[in-house]
């Protein structure tokens, strides 16, 4: 087992899972909603990027921007349908969960209708080739994935730490009622959260589509994995999501190399069940009372 290969695969997977899980985690902690339509955002932004590559330019930068913008739009759409009308209604968490599930069912079928079940492939935006870092060999798209997601993650975290809007989001994560009392607009903040997390899913979609094809239901597996990572890390914790992403990426890489690809989900789930049995709120999860 080549340790450099293992490390590289781990980091690649961790960066993509991190993007997905962070989105789910931030939405849960700030909006109190579980976004099951994150997979739909993922699939839509894949198609958005594909359309951009087909009709505007196959330039890697433009394709990434196209995917990210489509993701942000899809996120805004989900927020507009599932959060804005429901957030002050009784039984909000369950109803918004079901609403996002309905959106994901509807969206998948719409994509199937519009784009036909034939899979699409994105152009290789990072080019084809290998790069040697010391003793390790890395393909361009792996390096590109790591760099891109690291940049977006850092940008997002920096934005959340320093900007006014980020402060509002963090206030809402800590205490939504208190935030509303001191004048944070719940609706506008929620929409910006949805757009940012949608953009993250969009980038993850473009990056994963370097290795996989785009199809109407391509979002299911990333959704499940993102959710699982967010759960293991603890819903609502940024650091927990990142730690869990690295751990689960590592487990996936080790399992794929040591046992074979078909055992990946099984080992991941055993790991997560073990984590949740020891720490029911995940590695660094918030306690329920913070949300209420």
């Amino acid at each position, binding site marked *: 087992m080549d340790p450099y290969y293992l490390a590289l695969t781990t980091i690649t997977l961790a960066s993509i899972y991190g993007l997905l899980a962070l989105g789910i985690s931030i939405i849960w902690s700030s909006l109190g909603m579980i976004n099951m339509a994150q997979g739909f955002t993922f699939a839509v932004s894949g198609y958005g990027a594909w359309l951009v590559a087909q009709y505007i330019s196959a330039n890697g930068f433009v394709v990434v921007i196209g995917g990210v913008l489509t993701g942000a739009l899809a996120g805004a759409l989900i927020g507009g349908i599932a959060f804005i009308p429901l957030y002050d*209604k009784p039984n909000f968490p369950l109803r918004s969960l079901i609403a996002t599930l309905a959106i994901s069912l509807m969206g998948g079928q719409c994509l199937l*209708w519009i784009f036909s079940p034939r899979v699409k492939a994105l152009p290789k935006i990072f080019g084809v080739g290998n790069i040697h870092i010391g003793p390790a060999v890395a393909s361009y798209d792996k390096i590109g994935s790591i760099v891109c997601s690291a940049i977006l993650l850092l940008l997002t975290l920096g934005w959340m730490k320093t900007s006014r809007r980020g402060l509002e989001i963090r206030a809402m994560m800590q205490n939504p009622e208190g935030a509303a009392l001191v004048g944070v607009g719940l609706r506008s903040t929620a929409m910006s959260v949805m757009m940012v997390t949608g953009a993250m899913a969009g980038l993850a979609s473009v990056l994963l589509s370097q290795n996989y094809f785009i199809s109407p239901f391509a979002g299911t597996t990333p959704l499940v994995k993102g*959710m699982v990572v967010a759960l293991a890390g603890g819903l609502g914790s940024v650091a927990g999501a990142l730690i869990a992403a690295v751990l689960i990426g590592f487990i996936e890489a080790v399992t794929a190399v040591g046992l074979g690809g078909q055992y990946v989900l099984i080992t991941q789930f055993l790991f997560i069940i073990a984590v949740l049995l020891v720490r029911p709120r995940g590695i660094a999860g918030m306690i329920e009372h913070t949300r209420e």
Partner: protein
Amino acid sequence: MPETALVGSRRMLPALKGHGGASWHRWRYPFTRRTPLLIETDYNPTTLAAERRILNPRPILWLVALILLAIIPPVFGNNSFIAAATTFGMYAAINVVWQLQIGTAGIFSLASFATVGVGAYGTAVLSVYLGFPWWAMWLSGPLFGLVFGVFIAIPAIRLEGFYYALLTVGISELCRVYVVQSQPLGAANGGLFGADGFVPDWMHERAGLILGYYAALVLMIGGLTMYRMVNGQRLGRLLRAAPEKHEAFAEALGINYRAARIQVFLISSAALGGVGGFYATLLHGASPSLFMIDQLLLLLAMVVIGGIGTTEGAVLGTAIVVLIDKVFIGLGPSRLILIAGIMLITVLFLRGGIFGIPAQFSAWRGKRKSERRGLQSGKGGEVMPDEATEIADKQSIFVRRFDANLRSELKLLVNDALIEEHRTTSGKRRSDPLERVLAFFRRAAAADKYAVLAVRPFAEYRIVALSGRRGVPPRVVDDQVFHTPEDALHGVFLKRVQDLMES
């Protein structure tokens, strides 16, 4: 006390005729004192005729629905409709049992269809590789469900709410990936087929379909019976005492709610496994679609559209979704969009699905009513028109209206001259206006009526108020002391005039 509450919405129930022995006859479940129908016998206040009202029409509606279900598809449906109806029966059974997990046990498990899948795959394996006949598959299905239930119940001890829901979604996905990749489970053929079926080979196609449909209907009724047995009896009562966020209170009462929850969860898991055994004998095997997230979504759509936590909601939602999904199959993928649209509209606008509409509507109506009432002011004791619809005894409305009109008229008569006349004309002839006012005062109800108490005759008199109830003495109103009965009577008159002017 009036028999019905003075204010509040009254249910409109049809009144049945019948008097004598019929009034007191009750149907009972055999060997118990429990009655399926709650019948109230009453006398109509206007006509004095005996009337009976059935307070819970639901058992009758269920019976009618089941009879219709037993007649319509086999008699009027074509073959594909009967097949769709069979799917409906099976899904309805799954959903009803699932309500036990979500509603009664309060464990938000999304692995219900996966449990069915495990049962189906398990029994199909037994049949294909060990040659089990169909009845043995039916018997062994619950065992697989129980084992899988134990497996997925372990995280339920520690996890709560959404953590558990998401985990169960993951477990279904895990099962799907395993089944798709496993060669012995038929990865190459898109499912494990070749299991024994309960429909005999010599039957005609249509007869076989009808047999399958009736079996599915019996399965659904079995699911409903089980729901009733678990939810309506001891376990259900225990869990109703321990709803979410009140667990600590229930525990303090000595209710072991965790054990009860797990017990309900395991019972329903075994039942779901049994449905899986039925599925395998009906379709001669199992396919990975049992573990697909889309199937799970359809199941969730059924429950959500009908109303989470109720059996009638589960059955109606199943009927709607199966009708769109299987009968209008010509619509293509757009029918799933339609289902998702209905689900979205339900969840955006309804609190408890279709069967929650009456409660939500009356809550909305009550809110609007109280808003309107808040806008109106100064009704002077009279009943407002919108309040009148809620008062059972209509005579009281007219009494209050007459009273209010009379008081406003008498107020015009009261002046200083009248009061002076009362003081000076004790025991003599009085003027017409004064007699009218006094007649109104004398007519007042006994409760809280003023009276004169002779503490020492011809020396000390005080004003008291009657209690209006036998055996309860009058209470002293104030510490005024009068020396003659005439003065005391005038004191009572002044008090009454004061009350009249203030009303």
